[in-house]
């Protein structure tokens, strides 16, 4: 379905390589529900954050030296002697944090509005894959400046694999490329830190292909019934996303320019020293909830399994929540539990930053238990016992249909056929 273009060169190319038709179709006329709220801005923001990370990252890589003797110095050189090096580095460092903020909001948005339900299960699972890749990338990136937290964070986290029975220690040695975190480790982490963002780009493309198959979910969670429910992506959502980007950049700049180290740890401005262990080894804030789960379990292997389990449950979420109603707006009980799991995640984040002792550990155990209970017991139970509110007939007629019929949510969704 070739679109019409005024420019003759564009027409010539498009006839042979329909790239302009493709872009017109997917970014311009792409039909989108007209009722998306600002919570839907976070998807495009995540994409922009990824671009910011890649652009600043490649620029940093031009000046960075991946060697245990020079890495820390080369980062300080970037900060002091490279023109606007401090800006590039602070954009990258804080960009990592903001990427996670945006993606976490994006995930909770999906959880509230049931965006993981049929027919978007694979779309959701690809999102979880992106989260895992981001975590791997950020973890290895944090090792690169070779500060105390870089070194000890890498030591603690890679050591987790030693919990695997029989082959654990061999795997750790293999990961390190030696018998401790050292130059070989730094080099492979740098190599992978450069590679993985491009793997993320690949998965993001798959994520977009899956998204454009059925289009966006929406705050009502009912399927698009007719063209009346939709508006073209451009100009409506391009301008809305641009406005959202402006707001994002204001918050982001406030950190980059006025509190660039607020989210970091002072110990990472001390060069790595294998002979001195920091008083408390804490990962970056975005890993804290998982770190809390890890330390909540007295057994090392159990802790590791539970930590990976906390992401694995997200993977199978589409099959844990069987309620045919997508949007939390029409699920009075689910809605309450949704906010509880948000608070539980915040609590885990807080506990992950506290020393693993006394009341903190006990609280972390309860919060961890609740986290799994939410996904493995509460959600499946709600699918059976909760009576949803009646759903609107369609997006353009938010009139309540009689008798609580699940108009739409159960009916086969309309494909974005082309």
């Amino acid at each position, binding site marked *: 379905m070739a679109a019409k273009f005024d420019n003759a060169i564009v027409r010539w190319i498009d006839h042979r390589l329909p790239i302009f038709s493709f872009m017109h179709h997917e970014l311009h006329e792409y039909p989108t529900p*007209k009722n998306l709220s600002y919570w839907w801005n976070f998807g495009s923001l995540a994409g922009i954050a990824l671009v910011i990370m890649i652009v600043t990252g490649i620029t940093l890589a031009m000046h960075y030296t991946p060697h245990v003797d020079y890495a820390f110095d080369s980062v300080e050189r970037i900060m002091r002697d490279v023109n606007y090096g401090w800006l590039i580095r602070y954009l990258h460092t804080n960009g990592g944090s903001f990427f996670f903020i945006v993606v976490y*909001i994006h995930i909770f948005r999906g959880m509230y509005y049931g965006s993981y339900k049929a027919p978007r299960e694979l779309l959701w699972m690809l999102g979880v894959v992106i989260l895992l890749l981001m975590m791997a990338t950020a973890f290895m990136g944090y090792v690169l400046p070779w500060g105390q937290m870089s070194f000890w964070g890498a030591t603690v986290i890679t050591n987790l694999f030693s919990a695997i029975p029989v082959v654990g220690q061999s795997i750790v040695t293999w990961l390190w490329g030696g018998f401790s975190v050292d130059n070989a480790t730094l080099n492979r982490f740098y190599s992978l830190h450069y590679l993985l963002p491009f793997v993320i780009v690949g998965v993001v493309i798959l994520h977009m292909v899956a998204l454009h198959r059925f289009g966006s979910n929406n705050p009502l969670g009912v399927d698009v019934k007719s063209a009346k429910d939709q508006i073209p992506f451009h100009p409506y959502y391009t301008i809305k996303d641009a406005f959202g980007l402006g707001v994002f*950049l204001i918050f982001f700049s406030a950190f980059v320019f006025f509190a660039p180290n607020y989210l970091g740890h002072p110990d990472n*401005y001390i060069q790595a020293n294998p002979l001195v262990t920091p*008083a408390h080894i804490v990962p970056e*804030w975005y890993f804290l909830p998982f770190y809390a789960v890890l330390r909540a379990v007295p057994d090392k292997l159990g802790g590791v399994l539970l930590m990976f389990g906390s992401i694995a449950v997200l993977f199978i979420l589409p099959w844990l929540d069987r309620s045919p109603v997508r949007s939390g707006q029409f699920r009075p009980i689910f809605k309450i539990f949704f906010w509880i799991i948000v608070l539980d995640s915040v609590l885990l984040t807080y506990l992950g930053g506290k020393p693993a002792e006394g009341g903190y550990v006990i609280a972390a155990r309860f919060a961890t238990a609740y986290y799994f209970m939410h996904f493995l017991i509460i959600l499946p139970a709600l699918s059976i016992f909760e009576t949803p509110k009646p759903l609107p007939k369609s997006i353009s007629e938010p009139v309540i249909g009689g008798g609580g019929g699940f108009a739409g949510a159960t009916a086969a969704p309309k494909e974005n056929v082309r």
Partner: protein
Amino acid sequence: MIARLKTLAAAAVLAAALGIGGGAGNAVAATGSAEIPSRDWSFDGVFGAFDRAALQRGFQVYQEVCASCHALSYVAYRHLDALGYNEAEIKAIAAAAEVEDGPNDEGEMFMRPGKPSDRFVSPFPNEQAARAANGGAYPPDLALIVKARANGANYAHALLVGYVDAPADVKIPDGMYYNASFPGHQIAMPQPLNADGVEYGDGTPASIAQQAEDVVTFLAWASEPEMEERKTAGVMVILFLLVFTGLLYASKRKIWADVH
């Protein structure tokens, strides 16, 4: 309206999560140390800038007192132009240092006077030599010290003025000193500052607190030499973004006016 409020509440929760997460690391780092009083610094806040006179006095304190033990290795003499010194002054400061260079055509290392492009010469050739001269303790490089400690400027100040008599029940071993602000209270650094230990060119009375304030201002600059440029740029960027985002919002309203 209700939906708006809910959105706000949700945003607040997320902001809180962020605050907790970010603050957590710092809170953890501070455990085990004494209460550190907060002071007003010339470089605090959005419009904060280093007090130039304090920077120069602080540099004098560093040179005359701290430099015999502590390196400042990421700072070059040419960077001192930020303190308000002119080229001739910087050349003179650099030339006072002895820098090892080489090898020359005969393959020998040789000493020469420092140049503005040289980095500050360290008092010891390596960590072992520094430890040997300090009873086994290592005086850390001060170029990043304000960023490398939680609440860095306040902490460094409290440390420098924190030499008080040890409580009667505390035994301090030989070669160690009691400090109210150092974590664990036993520090291997003897009290570095003494009243009138330096003589300021501008006539400022050199009390211990004054010298501490000045040298910490200097060290804060050494840790973040880009700070003033960063904040000035930040004000411009945020002002621009506010206007630009306002325009985007107006455009959004206009474009969406026909969607019902």
